[in-house]
């Protein structure tokens, strides 16, 4: 070994972590499942802030305002948690990220900060109206997820900030959700397209619909026009009301080795229909 070692910090207290970030450029290291693959070297170049020992960064807590999901919560922890049906989509996504090993290490916060167009965590959070909590020595701020993930590998995170949590407002905990992912193989696959939906139904009709599509635009998007068209729909008609034209209007997919743009649009529409069907109650509530 050479003596060249990186400056690696793994504090347990948030203020210490924030002070380190304030003191100078430092790479935040969570699960490492995005960071390590990005280098060919046998080490990550420093300075590093390993956040996996931080108190309170992992875990899900319920409060009067809704749910707080710590940024350091792993996919496995998410999948195994006891959560309301509105979060089923997020849990389904958690089970489809990479393989077990990736789910055991990779975190929700890392997924959001990495800002890949194919990040499976984003659509399920979009349909939950999620907000991110960003902390720095300057204070704590909250941003709607839509205003946090800005583009391919681009977020609103300031250099001295840590993503500490994701908040789900109480109102968004209503209804049922589903996540459907399309890839070219069974495991360890980047999404060609993926969708999340959340539907609130009353007396056989949709009263609220939230739909989001990933991997079909630089950042996953909600589909407000399609959502509006679903409100008031009888449950038997929901899928049919999702039209390709309206889905296409909301998206701007690229063509790459995994699929053509046209294919992605068409697939997104199919996946949305299947997701709403999956999310809808099997029996109408009394």
């Amino acid at each position, binding site marked *: 070994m050479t003596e060249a070692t990186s400056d690696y910090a793994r504090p347990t207290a948030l203020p210490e972590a924030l002070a380190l970030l304030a003191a100078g450029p430092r790479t935040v290291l969570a699960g*490492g499942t995005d960071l390590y*693959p990005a280098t060919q070297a*046998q080490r990550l*170049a420093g300075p590093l802030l390993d956040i996996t*020992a931080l108190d309170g960064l992992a875990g899900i807590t319920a409060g009067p305002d809704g749910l707080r999901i710590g940024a350091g919560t792993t996919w496995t922890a998410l999948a195994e948690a006891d959560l309301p049906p509105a979060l089923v989509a997020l849990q389904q996504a958690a089970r489809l990220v990479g393989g*077990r*090993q990736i789910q055991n290490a990779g975190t929700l916060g890392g997924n959001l900060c990495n800002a890949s167009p194919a990040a499976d965590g984003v659509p399920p959070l979009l349909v939950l109206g999620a907000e991110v909590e960003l902390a720095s020595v300057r204070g704590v701020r909250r941003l709607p997820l839509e205003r946090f993930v800005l583009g391919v590998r681009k977020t609103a995170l300031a250099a001295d900030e840590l993503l500490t949590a994701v908040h789900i407002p109480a109102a968004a905990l209503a209804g049922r959700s589903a996540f459907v992912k399309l890839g070219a193989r*069974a495991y*360890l696959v980047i999404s060609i397209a993926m969708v999340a939906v959340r539907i609130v139904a009353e007396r056989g009709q949709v009263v609220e619909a939230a739909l989001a599509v990933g991997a079909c635009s630089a950042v996953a998007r909600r589909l407000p026009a399609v959502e509006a068209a679903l409100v008031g729909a009888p449950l038997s008609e929901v899928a049919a009301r999702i039209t390709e034209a309206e889905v296409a209007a909301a998206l701007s997919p690229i063509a790459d*080795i995994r699929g053509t743009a046209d294919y992605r649009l068409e697939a997104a529409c199919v996946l949305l229909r299947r997701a709403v069907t999956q999310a809808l109650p099997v029996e109408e509530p009394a």
Partner: protein
Amino acid sequence: MNQPGRFATLTVNGRAIAATGDPARRLSDFLREEAGLRGTKSGCDAGDCGACTVIADGAAVCACLMPVGRLAGARVTTVEGLADAPGEAGTLSRLQSAFLRHGAAQCGICTPGMLTAAAALLAKKPRPTEAEAEVALGGVLCRCTGYRKILAAVCDAWREDVPEAPLAPGAAVGARVRRLDGVPKVTGADRFGADEWPEGALLLKAVRSPHFHAGFHFGDISAWKAARPGVAAIFTAADIPGRNRFGVIPAFADQPALAEGTARLRGEAVALVAFEPGAEPDLTDFPVTWQPLPYLLDPAEAEAEGAQLVHQGRPGNHLITGRVRRGDAAAALAASTHVVQGSMETAFVEHAYIEPEAGSAWMEGEVLCIRACTQAPVMDRDETAAILGLPPERVRVLPTAVGGGFGSKLDVSLQPLLGLAVLKTGRPARMVYTRAESMTSTTKRHPARITAQIGCDADGHVTALSFDGLFDTGAYASWGPTVANRVPVHATGPYRTPAVLARARAIHTHGPSGGAFRGFGVPQAALAQETLYDQLADLAGIDRLEFRLRNAFVEGDATATGQVLHGTGIHDCLTALAPHWTRALAEAAAANAAPGHLRRGVGVASCWYGCGNTSLPNPSTIRLGLTPEGTLVLHQGAMDIGQGANTVITQICADALGLPVEAFTLVGPDTFLTPDAGKTSASRQTYVSGRAAQAAGAALRAQILRLAGLNGAASLRLEAAAVVVEGETSHRVDLAALPPNPHGYALMAEETYDPPTAPLDADGQGTPYAVYGYGAQMVELEVDTELGTVRLLKITAAHDLGRVINPTLAEGQTEGGIAQGIGLALMEEYIPGRTENLHDYLIPTIGDVPPIESLLIERADPEGPFGAKGLGEHVLIPTAPAILNAVRHATGVTITRVPLLPHRLRAAILAKGAP
């Protein structure tokens, strides 16, 4: 904040280890380099392969994505910690024993990751369902097994293992003998290319071209070196003492070990840097200037008039054309009742073995020793010696365990580079390719563009085939000539075809070199021919299986090369599928009765494949000796790359000799210790080396019987320093009393076998192979017509092995070949510059391989040992066409390009008019 020095204590396999150095170092690197736990493998350093899986505080994680500093106070279990009582024989865990029992480890490179991932599951769920096991192992790739035996082993791991009962002498052939080299594969003790190196070895890194085609020149290399104390030496082509040109087929040798002035290939090595042990192998700012040049990636453009030449002296970028002509195909097609015509296009396919190329080298006196993963030790020796200007006797190749080869480890890769550094510095050296280096710089399956026409008469008897194949052979010749020769011979498939005109040409581009990949072009040819057969059967109004049965070769039929066949099992294979076919068609029809976007389909395709070199000698020599002390030593030179040669060759030899498999001690393919058993390719080892082993066993037996004065049915038994022979009378052959020969053996037999073939004439007429193997596979699947995705339901594989030497290994080969066929059909497409990792280059995972039922057929071959034929490549050939045929059955869509990615299938469905 952590500072250099001791920063953490972690508990690995119950032992406390103080970690020093960089806390941000990958745990995998720490375990392998510092803790000496090399059972943990590195296949990608990117989370994509799972070979590095360890259990950290109860959870399976990729050690390559984990900073060692995080594990302070944590408990880590590696494969070495899985045995009930590590270090003691006979104390494997039930999981490890189940892997051996089921044949779940082939090459063994994925096995540590599979075992640890499974152990993490079993700790929570001792008797998992298959679905649970699948999810737990979804993150570990295996390129050899097709996963089915791994799943079975994990689900069966709760059971106490019952050790194998010893077999009676003469009963080894046909028995499910566990791999003889299996135990180290499940304990993590097996040593692959990256797992061993001499103390103080320099670490080598190659500087590689980032361009498809570029001129280059070096800047001030000595200044760059001088500024970096960690750099011990730098080499370029100017340092190569011998002939800087290699190639598996000497007449076509055209590839430099280090490029000279021009790089013709993305990933081509242009310089070699030797780093001091422990130095960061950093090539940043290496003084090389590139002048990117126009490049050719399309073989049709490359052969067009006026195209630039990849190699001077190969006009039209034409490497070679192979041709078989029999009768007048054009006239016969014109006279046929039904004729179909079609095309097929295939992509570069990457071997994607989980072990990237790796090895080490050192000097022993005057001898350069190279220990590396390989499929062809003697070829490595000769090529390395020529490049380094050494006589072959001064190079000793000591192969390591090989973590998958599938054809690509036939060509030398890092052997000459290791040799160069060691020869020049006098110091030991080691080299491990990164995944990206492995993918960019080594060979691929040739992309093919095939057009073909096939005709039949009103009764569905095939009349003629015309076949034209354009194969992209990339920058260097490699095995391009073999593909061009093999394809026309096999173009008819295993079917009687009275008139044939088949041509295949290999054309250079600046793409990756087209090399050997399981099947040497025949899988591509079968895709064209077998999909056309379905169309022809439909035209003739004949059931697709029946159509094949009507045309399948039978004993005494002649091939397109005019060779008369014996031991011909294709009809048997298709017949064996018949009841499955009837059931599957009925089930599909029932499922399809209801409308919907899920459509079921059933497809069938056949294969045949000549074992051994095409019309060229390829002898194997096997030596068998008895020491004066009574140790029975088999010099087994057939590289076991996971396919099982160590076990199968021993089984054959054991029965020929009349002693049990347990009596054998194996000496592997070390070029100083073991005679040449040829390369592990062309499905030749079971047949060719097996025949040599059978002959050696029989010869030694004859010597023993002669000394005992007995013949025939006597039984043998080894005792201390003696062989006891029991016949009508009992005799003791006292080995200590016999003078040992120069090899140190009291008794020894060494036998060579070379398949009897005959050259092909200008029309491709002759006897290219002595033995052919046959098979047919049936695929049941479901197409999601809205998304263009395919879900495989079941594959039934009937293969004629002549004689099944080891059913477990045969099934394992079949399942592994099928998995690669699935990849070829549905997902694998290597795009240079785009898919140079296992994230973007997709190979099947455990969830992509359906249940497989193997039907092992035995139509003995008169040449094969105990009637056996080869199998290794055959098993891959029918899978992809059977999948395409099933997709057509399900959707009515004719597919002419693989891989059939979802967007391509959806586009084809739309083009036909959406169902």
